[in-house]
């Protein structure tokens, strides 16, 4: 746990065209994520969380400010970062193993090596035996695990998750949270995750960053003290409840403020 994995400095993003009033999605975001740290970003909808991840992934340029990943300023997408979207976004015409190997194939890793790497992450994700199935033959939870495996397979230094479990039912989501922790524990990547589920954030993260409503700013950073590995049972502890309450109050203020706006 040494260096800084991600450094976001004064990132502002303004959306607008000549026709409509400009919308400030993000305003002066400063955020540091240490190597190996798991950070969860929570905040009311429209607080620009997804926009921030798109900027860090290089899919979008900030209006001002910069994102730096391991000392390298982000200007475009790169294999040092990987993104897991809310929708599983697997290619329906590729088998699971080819989907998991997709990022490697794009990076022109030799087919043999790409397959063996993909196989390793398929096993880690508990999808052994489904290599040659197609996405439509799998359940939503399995598809999302394949999606995470695909992101992990390129061996990114920084893994970004944009509400990865939002489309799943609540039981599957609980299991997936534990699965993600297990997969993460085996690799110890730096993770930045966006979620709407406060208990998900508290359960998974080392630190929770609460965003204010539009324009998005960092409102508070709350460390989560639970030791690892964590079991699902900590969700029922009093300490867990206290952190959830604290985060929820911060978000509630924001949601109310934006409703009265």
């Amino acid at each position, binding site marked *: 746990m040494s260096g800084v994995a991600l450094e976001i400095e004064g990132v502002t993003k303004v959306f607008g065209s000549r026709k409509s009033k400009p919308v400030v999605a993000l305003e002066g975001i400063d955020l540091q994520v240490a190597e190996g740290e798991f950070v969860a970003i929570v905040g009311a909808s429209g607080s620009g969380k997804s926009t921030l991840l798109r900027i860090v992934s290089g*899919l979008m340029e900030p209006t001002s400010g910069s994102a730096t990943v391991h000392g390298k300023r982000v200007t*475009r997408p790169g294999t040092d970062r990987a*993104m897991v*979207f809310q929708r599983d976004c697997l*290619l329906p015409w590729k088998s699971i193993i080819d989907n998991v190997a997709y990022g490697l194939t794009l990076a022109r890793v030799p087919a043999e090596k790409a397959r063996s790497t993909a196989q390793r992450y398929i096993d880690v994700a508990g999808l052994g035996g489904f290599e040659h199935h197609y996405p439509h033959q799998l359940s939503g939870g399995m598809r999302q695990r394949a999606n995470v495996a695909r992101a992990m397979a390129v061996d990114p230094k920084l893994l970004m998750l944009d509400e990865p479990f939002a489309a799943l039912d609540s039981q599957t989501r609980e299991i997936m949270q534990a699965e993600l922790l297990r997969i993460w524990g085996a690799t110890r990547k730096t993770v930045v995750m966006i979620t709407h589920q406060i208990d998900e954030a508290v359960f998974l993260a080392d630190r929770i960053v609460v965003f204010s409503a539009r324009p998005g700013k960092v409102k508070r950073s709350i460390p989560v003290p639970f030791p690892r590995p964590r079991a699902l049972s900590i969700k029922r502890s009093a300490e867990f409840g206290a952190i959830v309450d604290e985060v929820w109050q911060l978000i509630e203020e924001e949601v109310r403020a934006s409703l009265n706006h």
Partner: protein
Amino acid sequence: MMRALLAYLERHGAVPTLVRSAISFVVVIALWQLIATQFVTSSMLLAPPSEVLKALVNEIQGGMLWKNTIATSISLAVAFPISVVLGVFIGLALCSNRLVSMMFGPMLTALSSIPIIALAPLFVAWLGLGYASKFVLIGMVAVFPVIVTTESALRSADADLIEASRAFNASGWQVFRTVTFPYAVSFIIGGVRVAWARALVGVVVAEFFGSFAGYGYAIMAAGQTFDTATLLAYVFILGVLGLVGSLLLEYAEKRLAPWRYV
């Protein structure tokens, strides 16, 4: 017994489907035979299936069917693949460049909405009675459905999939090769199905106006001598050709995009 039979016919699978098709075929043929022999008694107006079969056998024995099949097949075998390939390329060109699309898009829409079949006499006048006029007419009618479906399929590719691909650092060409094009392929085949049906119309009409062989020529000749049975025999063959092509392409569509049919 009866109920078991009905339950069997409602089942999915190749054999029940075949049995269902066979039953409907037999019913239609029987009705046709009944109407043609009991109600419409002039065989110049409507020949019964038995007569049509006889005419078909006659055409086979006389070698006419073979000659006409060769002529029509050559026209289709040359012009249809070319129009499919050309259609895909034009569709790609329209998608790849905004300016090209804006310049030629409206023109193509206008061209595709005129009934090109109506130009058949003109093509024959320009290109003569040989194959050239057939190739051009088939090409002209078959190319537009392929262009239109190619363009719209490429444009409608899933934006989330494209973004996910770009997040993996895919280049523009890689996005096209791994996302946009594979997504479009099954839709393009849908367009090829439409094109096949239109190509059959195209070849028959072209042969009406100027040729000495082919199904269209045979239909025209039979019509002029009031040989309704022979005319219907060739129409029947065209129907089979259309059906087989359509079924094969439908099969290809399902094989290429199984996720669209769950």
